[in-house]
């Protein structure tokens, strides 16, 4: 199933401030995303179909009571479950770990930023979030979908063609490696090149 570049993606936005929720919702909608906003990490997990103490979603069909979420964008500083805690829960969940997560914060704290990136966050946005920041979301969603596709393709080629020429195999894994390296350098580049981030 090819990914339609024009497809409307669904973003789950998490922030305890009503003002900030209103802002992020508008930013996302203006950038053609479908949006669901929640005011806490625990509500976010509910939407994602995960109870706080679970590590994997129950075996229900997607139509049941979950909605497909393509990206989670969350505030860092929230009472109860912080954005970092939410990030961890998502990355620890077998069913949710591939959903890209972006963290927002009003404070530029390099150790905080690094901590989040190390835990698997795709990006860190400094508040107030700008329209131009929204453009950085789609690549993360598409990259995730591309990986999914490649994974399926690899699985299919492994089961259907027992005798695989080694060069063919290498090409697939090289592609993924190149993509991973690209991702890594992109992440580093974005971390340091964002005009609003000053890494001291």
């Amino acid at each position: 199933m090819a990914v339609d570049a024009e497809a409307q993606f669904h973003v789950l936005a998490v922030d305890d401030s009503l003002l900030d929720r209103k802002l992020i919702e508008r930013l996302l909608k203006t950038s053609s995303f479908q949006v669901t906003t929640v005011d806490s990490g625990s509500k976010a997990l509910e939407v994602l179909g995960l109870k706080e103490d679970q590590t994997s979603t129950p075996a229900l069909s997607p139509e049941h009571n979950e909605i497909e979420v393509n990206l989670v964008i969350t505030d860092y500083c929230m009472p109860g479950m912080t954005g970092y805690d939410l990030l961890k829960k998502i990355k620890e969940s077998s069913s949710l770990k591939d959903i890209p997560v972006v963290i927002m914060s009003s404070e530029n704290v390099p150790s905080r930023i690094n901590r989040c990136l190390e835990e698997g966050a795709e990006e860190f946005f400094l508040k107030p979030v700008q329209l131009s920041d929204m453009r950085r979301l789609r690549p993360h969603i598409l990259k995730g979908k591309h990986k999914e596709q490649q994974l399926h393709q690899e699985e299919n080629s492994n089961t259907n063609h027992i005798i695989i020429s080694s060069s063919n195999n290498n090409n697939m894994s090289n592609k993924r490696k190149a993509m991973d390296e690209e991702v890594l350098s992109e992440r580093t580049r974005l971390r340091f090149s964002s005009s609003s981030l000053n890494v001291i």
Partner: protein
Amino acid sequence: MESSSLQRQLANLKKSLFDQGNLDEQFYQLEELQDDASPNFVEEVVTLFFRDSSRLVANIEQAIEKCPRDYGSLDALVHQLKDSASSIGAAKMMKDCTVFREYCEKRNSEGCLRSFQKVKKEHSTLRLKLENYFQLLRQVGPAEKATRSGK
């Protein structure tokens, strides 16, 4: 027709908000997000801001008068106020909050009291100016909405 004089007032008020440093470019971001789907977005956001900020100012007042003063809690409240202000581009409020936080960190009582007076003053000024701004906007009519003419 009065509309051109109203338009002039509107433009002048907007210019003053920026020239005096009450607002910064973040406010333009809000205007960019306003459209037919969300025609009153800016005013809605500003209203939400003043709802938040009034509550925070009241809480800060309580925290400042508390004996003994808990500078940690006080700082946390001022931090929230500053974050709120940054969402609408209330530049002067942000600056005043930054100074306030510095005094909190140093546990400087005099400094905190002075800063708080400044923050309260800017809060009222900003509110007044923005109330006038939106009133004028309504009077001038939808054709004049969301322009960057005052830049």
